[in-house]
């Protein structure tokens, strides 16, 4: 394992705190944890020690949690007292990042609103509005108005197969193409905020702006 270790251990008054990296793959993390526990077997031996696990911004499900607990159990005297993520569940992870899927055409005068992010398979016609608290992905032509991050999330993005919007809004920023930017390019694009200004880029470059949209790691 090159570079910085994925796991940092801190001693506190009544036990140990394990700070786990939140950017790497979960499987990788478990392997590293196993290796570390095996390596320091001697140091950890002794009386019962309480362990607090901090996951950073990583969110885990039940299966991952039990795997994590099982790994700690290899070392008889380590008792996991808590497993915590930094991000409170309700604020960021739950509704705002949830993807709602929809298909059909949003026609003039129609409004689609949802909490979280929206995957729309179909077009948004001129005069149609889509509004979400998270991101907007349009698999089709975006010719109407799209408002992403409508509760103030400036990291939200708007992506479309064909970007010909009447207006784009992200959080509180409104942009009117083609006065402010024009795109004649045939590839899929996404709009994002950079220091309060709307920018448009090729969708394939999304991973540079937002690392957490899709966590795909090549095998």
């Amino acid at each position, binding site marked *: 394992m090159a570079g910085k270790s994925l796991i940092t251990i801190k001693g506190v008054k009544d036990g140990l705190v394990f700070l786990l990296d939140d950017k790497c793959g979960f499987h990788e993390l478990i392997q590293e944890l196993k290796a570390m526990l095996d390596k320091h077997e001697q140091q950890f031996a002794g009386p019962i020690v309480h362990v607090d696990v901090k996951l950073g911004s990583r969110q885990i499900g039940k299966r991952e949690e039990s795997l994590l607990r099982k790994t700690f159990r290899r070392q008889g005297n380590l008792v996991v007292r808590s497993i915590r993520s930094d991000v409170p569940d309700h604020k960021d992870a739950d509704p705002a990042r949830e993807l709602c899927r929809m298909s059909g055409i949003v*026609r*003039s*005068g*129609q409004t689609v609103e949802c909490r979280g992010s929206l995957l729309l398979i179909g*077009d948004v*016609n*001129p*005069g149609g509005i889509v509004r979400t608290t998270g991101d907007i992905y349009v698999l089709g032509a975006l*010719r109407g108005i799209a408002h992403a991050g409508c509760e103030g999330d400036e990291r939200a993005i708007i992506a479309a197969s064909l970007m010909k919007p009447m207006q784009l809004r992200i959080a509180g920023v409104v942009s009117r193409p083609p006065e402010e930017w024009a795109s004649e390019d045939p590839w899929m694009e996404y709009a994002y905020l950079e220091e309060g200004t709307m920018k448009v880029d090729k969708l394939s470059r999304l991973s540079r702006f937002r690392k957490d949209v899709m966590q795909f790691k090549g095998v």
Partner: protein
Amino acid sequence: MGEAIVITSGKGGVGKTTTSANLGTALALLGKKVCMVDTDIGLRNLDVVMGLENRIIYDLIDVAEGRCRLNQAMIKDKRFDDLYLIPAAQTKDKNDITPEQVRNIVNSLKPDFDYVIIDCPAGIEQGFRNAIAGADKAIVVTTPDNSAVRDADRVIGLLEKTHIGTPKLIINRIRPHLVKSGDMLSVDEICQVLAVDLLGIVPDDEHVIKAASAGEPTVMNPSSRASIAYRNIARRIIGETVPLQQLNEKTGVFGRFKKFLGMG
């Protein structure tokens, strides 16, 4: 049991009434029994376009309020025996009739006719709700303008939420030379945005204006391009497969000769 078709558009002035008159007449030309119903209460026009205004005694509101029987309000066309018109009232307005009353009238017409053509007023308010109440199918008329396409899109959205479902589209008043030069929306561009089935395209034609002022539907004049377009649309309505009309300007003598030889 006949079929009730509402002709609507959202925007005014795109040719709903002209389309209703011509499709009604074209269907009668094909031997169908047709009744046209004008639901544009307060601004009736269909009778004028058909040249039947001087024959009106009772109207749609009279039928709805029980002042006359349904067949008393039906005006027989002067050209066809199987073509009838129920005119709108000129002195009332859209709120004087309810969608249920229109539905009842249309439903009592359907057993006696092959087609009931309902001419819808502009707008999406009460008049629109009245007109679509009794219809089984809808035809949306638009012209190649951004504003008309926008309104057609709105109306399609509204129709999709009702019992009628997705309507069919007629693009009216196309000027081929403006489309060619890129100054007018093309048929493909409109179909891409609206994403509904295209029933037909009608070129802009002076004959339509001449015919309307004479109180005679264009479709009676077989040499007009718009007339051929309306006849084709009528044939598609009754289920025939007719290819879309070519929009190119009139071909010269040589072109016609080539066409005659089956080369064009």
